[in-house]
C-alpha cells in the first residue's frame, strides 16, 4: 500500500525505519513467534479501500434493505421514537466534544466537564435526587449496577423485582449479578397492571437487600403505591431502587420525593436517536448519603476552584473507580455514554421548563387518544385499567400476530406483542393524529375481517 488518507506515514516509512535503526518493519515484530505471524492479508471489507463515495453507496444499499415505514414504529419497551432537533446533532458533532475522551486533564476539558455537570444537574432536578453520575450504558445496565451496589452496602443476596418491570432490563440484571450469586425474587402484578403489594409483603423477608419498582412500568401503567412500597421496604431494612422514564417526571412525582435510595432509568427519550437501542444513556442517582454515594458506580463531575480561584470542574470521588481501586472498585465501568449525556443536556436546554411539560403532556394525550379511539370503536380494550403514559397495553379480539402482519403490509409497525392477543403500543410527538387514525383504521380492518369470516 502506497498511500491512504488515514495512514499518512506510508510514504515516510523508509526514513522512519532508518531513524529507528531497523532494516524493515518485520524487525519490529521479531519478538512474535514465527508460527503465529500472519502471512496473509486479513479478509475484511470489500477487496480494497473504498472511497467515501463508495462507502456512501454501500450504506444506501443497506438502507434500501430496511423496510420503509410511513411513520416511526409504535414501539416502546425501553426506548421510544422521538424527534431529535438539529441543534442537538450539531452540538454533539462539535469536534472538541465528540473526538475528546474522558477528561483526565480537566484544565483542557473544562467545557466538556461543565456540559457533563449540567447533565448531572438536569437529572438531579428532574429526579430530585442530589447525586447523579455522568452516565452508565443503559437502563438494564443501571439496574444491574444498582443491585450490585445494594449487595456491597448490606451484603444481602436477594433483590425483589416486579414482573411488570421491563423484561429486557431484568434479563440484563440477571446476567450481570449471577456471578455474585445474587438472586432476583419476582413479585406479581395485579389486575390493574401494578405491583401486587400483598405478594410483595409476603416475599419481603429480612434477607431481601432491596426492592425495585418501575414507573411507568413495562405496560405503560403508573405505579400508584410507591409510598407504601418504600415504607414496607424500609421497615424490613431493604433499600429501594426506583426505575423511571425521565420524560414522565414532568408529570409525576420524582423519586426524590418518595425518598428512595437509588433512582435509575434511561434518558434516550430526551434527545438520543433510537439507533437500534444503542448508544443510549443509563441514568444513575442516589440520595445525599455518604453510605450510598461512596458505593456509587461510574464517573461523577463536580464543581471546584482552580489555582486562581476561578470556578472550575473536575472528576470527583474517584477513589471508587477501577483505575484506583482495581478489584475493590464500585464498578468496572470506564468508557461510558458521555456524549449522549451532552445531547440530553442540550435537548433539555432547548425544551426548557415549559417545553418539557408540554412534550410530556403531548405524549400522554396521544397515547390516551389512541386508546380512546380503539375502545370507542370496539376493536380492542386496555389490558390494565391503571392510568398510563406514552405506552399502553391493548388487547384485541383477534390474534395480535395477524394485526401485526397487516400493519406491516400497510407500512406501519405496530406495538410489541406480549401475549397472543395483546401488545404494548407507544405514542409520541412523532406520531401525528393522522398516523394514529390510520393505525386504528388498519387494526379495525383486521378485526372486522376476522369477525366477518
Amino acid at each position, binding site marked *: *500500500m502506497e498511500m491512504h488518507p488515514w495512514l*499518512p*506515514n506510508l510514504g515516510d*516509512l523508509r*526514513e522512519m525505519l532508518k531513524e529507528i535503526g531497523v532494516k524493515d518493519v518485520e524487525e*519490529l515484530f521479531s519478538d*512474535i513467534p514465527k508460527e*503465529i505471524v500472519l502471512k496473509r492479508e486479513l479478509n*475484511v471489507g470489500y477487496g*480494497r479501500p473504498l472511497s*467515501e463515495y463508495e*462507502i*456512501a453507496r454501500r*450504506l444506501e444499499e443497506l438502507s434500501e*434493505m430496511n423496510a420503509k415505514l410511513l411513520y416511526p414504529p409504535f414501539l416502546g419497551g425501553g*426506548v421510544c421514537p422521538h424527534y431529535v432537533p438539529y*441543534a442537538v446533532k450539531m*452540538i454533539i*458533532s462539535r*469536534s472538541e466534544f465528540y473526538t475528546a*475522551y474522558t477528561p483526565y486533564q*480537566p*484544565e*483542557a*476539558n*473544562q*467545557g466538556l466537564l461543565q456540559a457533563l455537570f449540567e447533565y448531572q*444537574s438536569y437529572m*438531579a*432536578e428532574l429526579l430530585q435526587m*442530589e447525586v447523579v453520575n455522568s452516565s452508565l450504558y443503559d437502563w438494564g*445496565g443501571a439496574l444491574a449496577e444498582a443491585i450490585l451496589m445494594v449487595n456491597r452496602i448490606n451484603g444481602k443476596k436477594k433483590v425483589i423485582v416486579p414482573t411488570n418491570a421491563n423484561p429486557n432490563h431484568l434479563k440484563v440484571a*440477571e*446476567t450481570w449479578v449471577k*456471578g455474585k450469586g445474587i438472586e432476583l425474587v419476582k413479585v406479581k402484578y395485579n389486575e390493574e397492571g401494578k405491583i401486587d403489594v400483598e405478594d410483595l409483603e409476603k416475599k419481603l423477608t429480612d434477607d431481601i437487600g432491596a426492592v425495585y419498582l418501575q414507573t411507568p412500568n413495562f405496560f405503560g401503567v403508573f405505579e*400508584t403505591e410507591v409510598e407504601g412500597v418504600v415504607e414496607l421496604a424500609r421497615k424490613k431494612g431493604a433499600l429501594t431502587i426506583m426505575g423511571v422514564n425521565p420524560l414522565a417526571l414532568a*408529570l409525576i412525582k420524582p423519586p426524590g420525593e418518595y425518598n428512595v435510595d437509588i433512582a435509575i432509568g434511561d434518558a434516550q427519550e430526551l434527545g438520543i436517536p433510537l439507533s*437500534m*437501542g*444503542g*448508544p443510549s444513556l443509563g441514568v444513575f442517582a442516589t440520595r445525599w448519603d455518604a453510605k450510598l*454515594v461512596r458505593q456509587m458506580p461510574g464517573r461523577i463531575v463536580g464543581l471546584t476552584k482552580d489555582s*486562581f480561584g476561578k470556578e472550575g470542574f473536575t472528576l470527583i470521588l474517584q477513589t471508587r473507580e477501577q*483505575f484506583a481501586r482495581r478489584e475493590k*472498585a464500585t464498578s*468496572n465501568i470506564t*468508557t*461510558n*455514554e458521555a*456524549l*449522549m449525556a*451532552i445531547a440530553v443536556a442540550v435537548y433539555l*436546554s432547548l425544551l*426548557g421548563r415549559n417545553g418539557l411539560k408540554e412534550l410530556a403532556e403531548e405524549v*400522554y394525550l396521544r397515547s390516551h*387518544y389512541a386508546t380512546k379511539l380503539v375502545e370507542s370503536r370496539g376493536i380492542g380494550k386496555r389490558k390494565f385499567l391503571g392510568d398510563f403514559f406514552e405506552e399502553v397495553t391493548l388487547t384485541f379480539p383477534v390474534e395480535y400476530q395477524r394485526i401485526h402482519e397487516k400493519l*406491516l403490509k400497510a407500512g406501519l409497525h405496530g406495538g410489541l406483542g406480549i401475549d397472543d392477543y395483546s401488545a404494548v403500543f407507544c405514542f409520541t410527538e*412523532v406520531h*401525528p*393524529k393522522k398516523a394514529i387514525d390510520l393505525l386504528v383504521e388498519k387494526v379495525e380492518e383486521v378485526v372486522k375481517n376476522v369477525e366477518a369470516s
Partner: protein
Amino acid sequence: MWRQAKWDEPLIFEYKEKGRRGMLIPREDEIRKAVSVNIPDKIRREREAELPELSELEVIRHYIRLSQMSFGVDTGMMPLGSCTMKYNPKVEELSQSLVENLHPLQDISTVQGALEMLYEMQEWIAEITGMDKCSFQVPAGSAGELAGVLMIKKYHEEKGRRRDEMLVADTAHGTNPASAAMAGFKVVYIKSNNRGLVDLDILKEVVNENVAGFMLTNPNTLGLFEEEILEISKVIHSVDGVLYYDGANLNGILGVARPGDMGFDVVHVNLHKTFAVPHGGGGPGAGAICAKGEMAEYLPYPIVEKSSKGYSLYYPKESIGKISTFFGNVGNVARAYTYILGLGPQGVSAVGKMSTVATNYLISKLRGIRGLELPFPGKYRKHEVVFSAKPLMNDTGVTAFDVAKALLDRGFYAPTIYFPPIVDEALMIEPTETETRETLDKFANALKEILAEAYSDPKKISSTPLNTSVGRLDQVTANHPTTVTPTYLVKKLREENKIGALR
C-alpha cells in the same frame, strides 16, 4: 503559541430570563380537545422541575463556548496511552443514516439492512481476532470483560467445577480485576519479570485446578509483546483454564498476529480504540466479545445469523444472557463498519505495522533525554511506550503530573500518567498510526523542551498549565465532604443551608 478559549460561561441554570423557548413541539389541537391530562392526585408532580428558559441561539452559544473549552483528536494530538486516540474519519457519521431511526424491537424482517451490516462486522471482527463467533452485546471494553469472565465462570460450572480464582497480570488495566471481582472471582495477580513480561515461573507455580482463567492483553500495557504467549497458553490450558484477551491493545498487532492464533479463547475488542469509533468525551464506545470453539456457545445473545431466508437472531446454547438491554451500541458498530470499508483489507492489515512504526520512531526521538528513563529497554514497543519520569522527579522535584500539564500548554494532550502501576512516574504514550511524522517530531521536541526547562526552572513547569481555560484544579475542595458539589441541586441546597456534609 497554543491558547485555549477562556470564556466565563455561567452554568446554564444561571440564565434567569423567563418565557423563552429553544424548540417547538408538534401539537395536535384536536387530540387536546378529545382527551385531557388526568394524572391521579397521589402521584402528580406538584413542584415543577426548574429548568432554564432559553432561546435557541442562547443554548447554541452556551454549548459552542463550552466546546471551545475542550480538547479532542481533531484539536490536537492525544497521546493517551492505552486509549488509542486515532483520527475518527468523518465518513463514519454517514453510517448513522442506516441505523438511527430503527427501533430495537422491530420485526427483524424490517431491519435486514442493519442486520447485514452487523453480520458482516461479526465475520470481520472474528477474522481479525482469529475467533469463531462475535457478539456486539457489549457497549464497551469493560462490559466485554464482564461478559468474558461470566462466560468463563459458566463454562466451568457446566463442567461441574467450582473455580474461584481469576489470574490477572500486574500490568493489567484496572478494569480487568474490577470485572473479575464483579463476576465473583478472587483476583490473583501475576507479577511481571525483569523484562516487563508475564513471569512464566510464577505462572506455573500459581496455576492449579482452582484457576478459572487468565486475563491478559498482548501487547501488554508497557507496549511489549508477550513473546512466551504460546507457553503461557499451554500452562493455562493444562488445567483447562480459559485464556482471555483484553483487546484494548490490538492496534499494535492488527494485521500482524491474531489472538486466536496465540491460544486465546475469548477476546474483547474496543471498537472505539482499534476501529476508530470516536471517544465522545468519555463514551459511547462499542465493543465486541468473541470466542472460539466450545466457548463460542457461551457468548451473550443475540448474535446475527444468515440463512437462505435472510438474517435472523441466534441464541447460543449456553449463553450467559444479555449484557445490554438491546443489541449493544449499534450506532457505533456502524461507524466502525465504514472505517473498515475505507481502509480495506490492505489498510486494516497495515494498522499494526504503522502504529508500531510510529511508537518506535517516537522512542528514537526521545531516547536518552535527561530525566526520562525507558524501563525494560532493548525491546521494540508495539502500539505504545511507557517512560518513567522518576529520574526527573529525583533530580528536580518535577513529576509526571507536572510534565502532563506542561504538555497541555504546548497544545498537546497529555499522555496517560501513573499507569501501569509497576512503573514509577509513568508517562504512557500512544501516538497511533494517524499522526504524521512531523507531528511526532513536534511532540518529541515539546517533551524535550519541557524536560530541559524542568532542570533549569522547575517552578515554571510546576505552575503550568497557563494556556488552558483554567489553571490546576483544587482537588480538596472538589472532594471534601463539606464542599463536594456533584450537581447544581447540591449547590443550591448548600447555599440555603438545607444539606450537611457528605459523611
